[in-house]
């Protein structure tokens, strides 16, 4: 009974934080007005960089798509950090009395929602621009969800590490990109299966993505409170 109540309290707080972040994003239109165009722009630039060579682009599609998502993650997490860095918002989050783990879950969920929107646009984008063909939609969707949760949790955790530091915009990519290497590898492999370019077992890579997401979610839930208190 109490466990159930605690869980619903946790979920309620997480939804509260996530909806707050998403509302701010919606009002500022940054995700829509900057992150999405940025992601599409990167797709177009990769087309130039690879000399608009169709077979090459097709072969490289999964990798290029996830590189783009990775860049979008950096931008989205920077926004998520910036929201909390003014007017002592982080202090308020701590003083609100909600479990830090719930606040972390909410922050990560808001980033995840934005990334999913980016992916929903990018996947048709590569079908149109790079001539890619989706062979297994369930695999593509499962990969997107698992990879996004992993990127959002690792990103929100490392975002909290650099929060409140003047140089946070330059330090965040140095921290986040190496740690995200397994996501890039796994999601690219799984998409290669989902797009039918390479014969691999995409679902086992989805399992690895889920493991990455779980590990970073737990780590974030445990240490987020310490970061809020100390920094």
């Amino acid at each position, binding site marked *: 009974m109490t466990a159930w109540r605690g869980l619903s309290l946790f979920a309620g707080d997480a939804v509260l934080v996530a909806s707050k972040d998403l509302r701010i994003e919606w009002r500022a239109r940054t995700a829509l007005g900057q992150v999405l165009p940025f992601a599409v722009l990167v797709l177009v630039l990769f087309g130039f960089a690879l000399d608009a060579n169709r077979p090459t682009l097709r072969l490289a599609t999964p990798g290029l798509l996830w590189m783009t998502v990775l860049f979008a993650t950096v931008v989205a997490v920077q926004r998520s950090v910036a929201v909390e860095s003014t007017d002592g918002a982080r202090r308020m989050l701590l003083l609100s009395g909600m479990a830090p783990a719930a606040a972390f879950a909410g922050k990560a969920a808001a980033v995840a929602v934005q990334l999913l929107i980016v992916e929903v646009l990018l996947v048709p984008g590569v079908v149109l621009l790079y001539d890619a063909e989706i062979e297994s939609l369930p695999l593509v969707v499962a990969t997107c969800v698992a990879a996004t949760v992993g990127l959002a949790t690792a990103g929100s955790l490392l975002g909290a590490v650099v929060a409140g530091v003047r140089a946070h915009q330059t330090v965040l990519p140095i921290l986040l990109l190496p*740690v995200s290497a397994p996501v890039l590898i796994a999601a690219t492999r799984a998409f290669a299966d989902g797009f039918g370019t390479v014969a691999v077992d995409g679902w086992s890579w989805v399992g690895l993505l889920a493991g990455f997401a779980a*590990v970073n979610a737990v780590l974030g839930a445990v240490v987020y409170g310490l970061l809020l208190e100390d920094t």
Partner: protein
Amino acid sequence: MTSPEPESAPSEPLIASYLGGPARTGSRFTFWLGLVTLIGLAGVAVLGLLAAPADDVQGDSVRIIFVHVPSALGAYTALGVTALGSVMWLWRRSVWWDITAHAGAEVGVLLCGLMLVTGMLWGRPTWGTYWEWGDVRLVTALILFLVMVGYLSVRALGGDADSVATRAAVVGLVGGVNIPIVNRSVNWWANRTLHQQSSLTDGKLEDLTLFTLFLAFVVAAMAILWMMMHRFRIGWLERQLRARDLDDALAARRAEAGR
């Protein structure tokens, strides 16, 4: 006529009394440790470059193992110390462990870089390429190196010592937890390792080569200990100095206000 004391640098006893402890990073122990390490390094160089025989297959390039293998072991040890120190800071608020974690990261990044460079130099004549993407250990080591460079850049952010310690400790923890996943993913990604299996246990090494390698291990361990001790003391002095600076500034302000 006696020459006057140079005015620029404050004398050591003065600094010592200011900090409430010795102002140097050396001690009698580290002096002798450093001296023995230097002699040992010379010994490894002579044995490794001149006395140990060239390998039947690899020729002279095999001599790189005298640097490569100890620095690899040293790098993983030092970075393990950093991960442990990060946990101990977050769990117990141990300043000792925080400074040790920082020292471990700096020494570890140095050795990790040395391991990568020597590995590439060895890979070129042996594998025919400096870099092999399919090799799990290579790619994992590179990612580890990059994560730890990020750790050091967080250390350099400045600000309150405790908050920097917490930020860095979380990065150390995230790195420590994710490195096995990196290893796993690279392993699945391209399981076509070129890497030397351990040659220590298969009995193929000459006696003198084996002896040189073990000497190199011992010397590397001493060098790491020497570097860690000095780096730890620098970190400790930095913390003392910061605390004193704040105390002095507060005292000055209070004196001003009281007047």
